[in-house]
């Protein structure tokens, strides 16, 4: 199979490679690295800068940052991906129905969404997580629910815009059922917005997990997650900036990769961006 043109561009290629690498790390690291490598404390080398023994330095408890960032990838990526997928699974139908059906349905659904939007996302996630209890699964549910209203709002707006396009009206007079109209005519045309929003949400979800962990509701110490590492580094920024830089770089690379990948994916799905298709 030939790679879509969008992924043959340098930007798309870099994005795809980055995302692939991070996914591989997230999946393979826990299988090949013994889990206690991330929790082993080297009390003589606390806050050590990068050395031969600790290539990326250590944190305030003398734990090796390289192992922590590699093993933390699993937790961070897993939680963020699952939470964003969950928000899409709930938000996409919600927004589509609200935007397409309109009238009372739209009013009821959107007031519900507005109520959720009235709380800061993190506060909402915090409350849900506190009610459900602190564990991995509940963290995902909490972030997933907290992120749903944004997505639902954006999708509703897009659905509203697309639903009044002449091609949708023409498709209606062509005898299409409501379901087919939504699936074949509206959904493909709002996918670009969904993809862009999802890649941004993924980055925010990694940070949201950090916030929850900081408050004792997400990942439980001594397990590693990127967000937890960034939170823990805040007291040592002046003496040991690498404690923030290492997990920070991991998050930044992931977000960068996801954005580039997301753009390429959007272009790959758009017939207008396909080159040489004629």
């Amino acid at each position, binding site marked *: 199979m030939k790679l879509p043109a969008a992924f043959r561009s340098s930007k798309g290629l870099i994005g795809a490679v980055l995302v692939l690498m991070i996914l591989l790390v997230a999946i393979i690291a826990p299988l090949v690295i013994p889990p206690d490598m991330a929790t082993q404390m080297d009390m003589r080398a606390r806050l050590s800068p990068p050395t031969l023994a600790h290539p990326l330095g250590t944190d305030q408890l003398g734990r090796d940052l390289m192992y922590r960032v590699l093993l933390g990838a699993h937790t961070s990526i897993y939680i963020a991906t699952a939470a964003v997928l969950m928000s899409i699974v709930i938000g996409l139908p919600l927004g589509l129905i609200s935007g397409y059906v309109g009238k009372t349905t739209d009013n009821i659904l959107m007031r519900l969404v507005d109520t959720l939007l009235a709380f800061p996302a993190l506060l909402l996630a915090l409350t849900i997580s506190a009610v459900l209890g602190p564990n991995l699964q509940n963290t995902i549910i909490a972030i997933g629910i907290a992120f749903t209203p944004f997505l639902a709002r954006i999708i509703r707006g897009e659905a509203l815009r697309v639903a009044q*396009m*002449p*091609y*949708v*009206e*023409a*498709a*209606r*007079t*062509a*005898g*299409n*059922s409501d379901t087919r109209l939504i699936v*074949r*005519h509206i959904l*493909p*045309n709002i996918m670009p917005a969904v993809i862009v929003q999802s890649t941004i949400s993924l980055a925010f979800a990694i940070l949201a997990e950090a916030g929850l962990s900081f408050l004792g509701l997400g990942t439980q110490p001594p397990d590693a997650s990127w967000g937890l590492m960034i939170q823990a580094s805040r007291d040592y920024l002046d003496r040991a900036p690498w404690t923030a830089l290492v997990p920070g770089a991991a998050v930044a690379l992931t977000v960068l990769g996801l954005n580039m990948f997301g753009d390429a994916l959007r272009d790959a*799905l*758009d*017939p*207008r961006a396909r080159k040489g*298709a*004629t």
Partner: protein
Amino acid sequence: MPDGSPLVSIDNLRVEFRGEDGPIVGVEDVSFSIKPGETVCVVGESGSGKSVTSLSLMRLVEFGGGRIAGGKLEFARDSGVLDVADADPEIMQQIRGNEIGMIFQEPMTSLNPVFTVERQMTDGLRLHRGLSQSKARARALELLKQVRIPEPERRLKQYPHELSGGMRQRVVIAMAMACEPRLLIADEPTTALDVTIQAEILALIDRLKRETGMAVLFITHDMAVVAQMADRVVVMFRGNLVEEGPVEQIFTNPQQDYTKALLAAVPRLGEMRGKPAPEPMRLVGQSPVEADLKPARKPEPLLEVQNLTTRYPVKGGVFRRPVANVHAVEDVSFTINKGETLALVGESGCGKSSCGRSILRLTEPTSGKVLLDRTDIIAMNDRDLRRRGWRDMQMVFQDPFASLNPYMRLKDQVAEPLMNYGLASGSELKDRIATLFDHVELPRSFMTRFPHELSGGQRQRIAIARALAVNPKLIVADEAVSALDVSVQAQVLNLMMELQSEFGISFLFISHDMAVVERVSHRVGVMYLGRLVETGSRAQVFENPQHSYTRSLMSAVPVADPTRKTIRDDLNFRPIPSPVFPLGHEPGPSEYTEVAPGHLVLKDNKT
């Protein structure tokens, strides 16, 4: 400046734009000149480079990613001749808005919505002329009077959104005139305006030109406007100058094939006089289209619209409750016979589109009856409408770029109605689609393409193929050719007439263009403020218009014939009143006088 020397002389202008794969040529090689006090019209279809030429003269093309790659643009100033192509940015600032004024196409966006008219008008005066605020204000007032805006004092305090489209364009013209430029560049200044307002604006520009002696460079795609405005004409095609000459010569004795083809594609108001039926246009370089569109001896009614009324609520307040109603369609009745075309004409906001959409129930009418072959469409529920209603009537929309789904292959879009209505499947489906592509004269190789790979005219053919797929009895064409270039428009019109004679389809042809309507219609209905003010056969309405609105509409249409100047001094049409009425307002029924058999005129005592 010695007599007879040109004000502007453009020599071998070449403009390039940055593209992904090297430069794209916007203008290849264009040379012409403008003498003081003359109007030069640059005419061409989209992509001809006519706007790029005018933007180059202002050096505005650089702000759109373009570059003047060669040639001279000489402009005669008081201090001597200046080559605009390599003038300093500071000098260009002195010239723009001061020595050269410019009017753009869209009056809605060429004024800044957050400043009052006074603020926008006085800015340029204070900058270029160093006037004090009070003097600039006095001058602005004088200018508004010069462009004949009613109540000029009040207008100064108003914001752009408080003015109508025509009024806004007058303000834009007043601003362009503020510093008494020697050259006025007007880039499609009336394209976005209604025909009566267009006539007013054209008359205004013509009068200002005569009064002030400035030269006008007028960019347009409309040959009729050219005929009315131009002293000399420059015809452009794909970045090159095709032909140049005095306006009479271009119209009566064009030399180049392209000019001849362009002129042949323009429908001229009045040329169908005395003809019994619509006739396809004779296009240069194409075999004539055969179509017998004579009305049947015994006409059979297909669509009967009775007392159709459509109102939209205007919502307001905290709870978004209806506070008023837009009376879009008000007690409209008409009949379309089998195999015939009824055209609805009128200006924007007159309700012609709402009427078409209400018939298909894309917009729900408030009351009235729509009978298609004696089946009541309004009484149908959603399922019946989907199964039977739209099986017999289809729509073609205005915007060819928005009426096809960008994510679906063309064959799939044309196949949808066939599959949904169970008309074909399997190999038969493929054959039907191929035949439909043949009918609209598109190559079958286009079937697997996506919409973006097609031009506007080709897309509109696909939209027609999709509408034809179900073998409908009626097609509602809502401004279906308005967005197309004139040569493409003529081809699509011919195609529609050909299909009509072949399949006996009826058309409801909604358009603002009187000349096009005269070409294609058997019967005509003129709409004004939601009402049908006059209806009759094409000959009755066009050759013997009775209602005062029909007459003013006809007198405003520019004719593509320089010997018949219809643009007179200071036209002032009555502005169209608002169709918004308070809740519960019940206007009286439409009552008509039958001035001749089938020729109805609205009794004019209600609005």
